[in-house]
């Protein structure tokens, strides 16, 4: 799994020719443009919701592929970072009334910091042992999130009300704080 993918990507990264670079980049640019233009053409909540979820899956898949595809380390613990980003963003918007876009960034930064804490010990393991350890981390964090007052325990927390009043694309924000469970 890992070898074929890395071979496909390395030539573009090294920059053998600009044509191959364009061939690699074109679908991504197209996807990006489509994501930007379609909501302008069809401004109904269902379309935006569908696109939003599709792009969330794209991002989470890319995130997983960096680790699982390129390095071959299968992790079942991505829900930890997904949930951490969601909670950070939601809490910053609702409690600190930060601007949503800044809050998204903060969520990413905090998740990256957390990945250092988890990654340094976990990467001493390889393959299936790494995979099992990440399941452990994932369930541990879920249990903690289910018990902490800060995260609203099992009921959860949401940024929907704050999101509606501060953002132009009103329908997308509520989805930024779904539950911490993602499998």
């Amino acid at each position, binding site marked *: *799994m890992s070898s074929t993918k890395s071979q496909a990507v390395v030539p573009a990264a090294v920059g053998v020719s600009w044509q191959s670079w364009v061939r690699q980049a074109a679908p991504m640019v197209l996807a990006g443009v489509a994501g930007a233009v379609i909501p302008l053409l069809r401004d109904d909540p269902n379309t935006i919701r569908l696109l939003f979820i599709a792009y969330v899956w794209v991002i989470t898949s890319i995130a997983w592929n960096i680790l699982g595809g390129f390095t*071959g380390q*299968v992790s*079942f613990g991505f829900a930890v970072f997904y949930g951490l980003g969601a909670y950070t963003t939601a809490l910053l918007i609702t409690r600190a009334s930060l601007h949503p876009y800044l809050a998204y960034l903060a969520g990413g930064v905090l998740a990256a910091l957390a990945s250092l804490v988890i990654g340094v*010990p*976990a990467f*001493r*393991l390889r*393959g*299936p*042992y790494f*995979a*099992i*350890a990440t*399941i*452990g*981390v994932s*369930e*541990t964090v879920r*249990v*903690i999130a*289910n*018990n902490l007052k800060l995260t609203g325990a099992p009921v959860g927390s949401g940024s929907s009300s704050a999101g509606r009043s501060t953002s132009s694309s009103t329908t997308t924000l509520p989805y930024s704080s779904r539950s911490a469970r993602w*499998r």
Partner: protein
Amino acid sequence: MTAAQFVNLLVAALLLAGVYAIMSYGLALAYGVMKLVNLAHAGFMMLGAYLTLEAFRRLGLDPLLGAIVTAGVLWLVGMGVYWLLVRHVPTSDEPTLPSLLLLFGVWLVLQNIGYLIWGTQDQAILTPRTLQTIRLGPVTLPVVRVLVFLVALVGLAVLHLVLGRTWFGRAVRALTQNRQASRIVGIDVGRTAMLAFGASTAFSGLAGGLLATLYSFNPDFGGPFLLRSFVIIVLGGLESFAGVALGGLVLALLETFSVLVIPAGYQLALSFGLLVVALLVLPGGLPSLFAWRRRL
């Protein structure tokens, strides 16, 4: 803590350890024979719980008897899953990533089948026995837990006999030790693997059925128990069958006595912390600790 409380907790831990050992053997068998990390274990446990519930509701079968019948049904289901899916993924001396992902997928499918058929509500199996207790001096024994422990003991005894006394058991042990050599001496690896995978799911189902009489459950049910089984077989040293029983006991003791120190909600976090620590500092499990001491 008074002495009576201590004894009560100790007994509770011992009774729990029986079920923990049963569910971990499900995982350990599949790992030993095929080097398969059976993530679908959780799904099979959930299926076992619901089948026991259905047998209880529709046929009026006693849940403990139902759990045993369920184990038989899941033996067939497991062999079917092996024949349909598992035999097609590559296996080697280390667990392979395709098999990991396949079984993770099987787990998700089973979980969603569970949601489809039985919905999202929590279910529980309540019999007149559920709340009965026996008093033995200072010790209070919940009847269900004692019975579940006895059924678990019978299951373990059967497993022990099968592994120790039959040709199938011998083949399983040989495959666990060395795949290549087993092939050379003429063991039918495919057939043994199919039977062993069936046995592994049967144990998952039995554990699921037994746990269903102790706890409430929903289609998400297996997850925490899958992870407890991981902790146990990692503690037990992935391939040692005596180690698994020991691992079950250690985890049950730790979980039971941890309620004195930390809130019960964090029990799971403790076990998974233990899992990560065990993987990092004790890759050979508890038996390696003894081996190390013997070397000195």
